[in-house]
């Protein structure tokens, strides 16, 4: 594939109440093999997908939150969290997992994949995307 497109995955729903968080993550992992320019955006209730300390035994569902920490290994390291969504929900960035990747251009130094963004920056991410996937 000669052309590299900007793929933006928009996550706006909380995990477990619906399947979208889990199944959209599966698209991201499979999509990684296509070596496109991938960005993950978490906005509105999507920010809940990344909370630390998810324990799902009580609801009898599979806890897939660890999978997010593997994203860096799949070269998915451009992750954007909408600041307004956190604020509205009484959350801070410290409530979320810190997702990291190893930068091969910097001696494999471990860096954070996470960027907290404003609505203006979110608008830019959307406007620059070639492909916008919503779930």
């Amino acid at each position: 594939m000669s052309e590299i497109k900007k793929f933006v995955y928009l996550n706006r729903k909380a995990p477990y109440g619906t399947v979208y968080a889990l199944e959209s993550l599966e698209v991201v992992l499979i999509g990684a093999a296509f070596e496109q320019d991938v960005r993950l955006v978490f906005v509105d209730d999507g920010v809940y997908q990344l909370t630390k300390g998810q324990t799902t035994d009580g609801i009898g569902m599979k806890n897939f939150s660890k999978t997010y920490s593997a994203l860096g290994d799949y070269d998915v390291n451009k992750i954007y969290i909408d600041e307004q969504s956190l604020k509205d929900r009484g959350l801070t960035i410290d409530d979320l997992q810190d997702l990291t990747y190893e930068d091969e251009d910097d001696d494999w130094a471990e860096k954070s994949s996470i960027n907290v963004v404003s609505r203006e920056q979110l608008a830019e991410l959307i406007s620059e995307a070639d492909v916008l996937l919503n779930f």
Partner: protein
Amino acid sequence: MSTLHTVNKSPFERNSLTTCLSVAGNGSTILLIEDGVAGALQNTTVAQSISDAMGSGVKFAVLGEDLNARGLAKDRVMDGISVVDYAGFVQLATEHDNVQSWL
């Protein structure tokens, strides 16, 4: 790049239109479809936000077939919101550089 935003949920059910309005920029179009057509009527509590967005250069359209299905007459649609059909929906998708489907 200019974006076609589609919003398929009523603003009274879900916050999709609100979030969309906060990121839609000058030159983009917001198309209301399915239950989202509820946002197109005059005198709703979202009418002001829509007017403000129009003032910032966001264009608005609503899918006529979905208005008709819900018994909402075209003359009740806000000024400045064009009523389009499915062919118009297709046309909007071709005229903009990308499509953001707010669900």
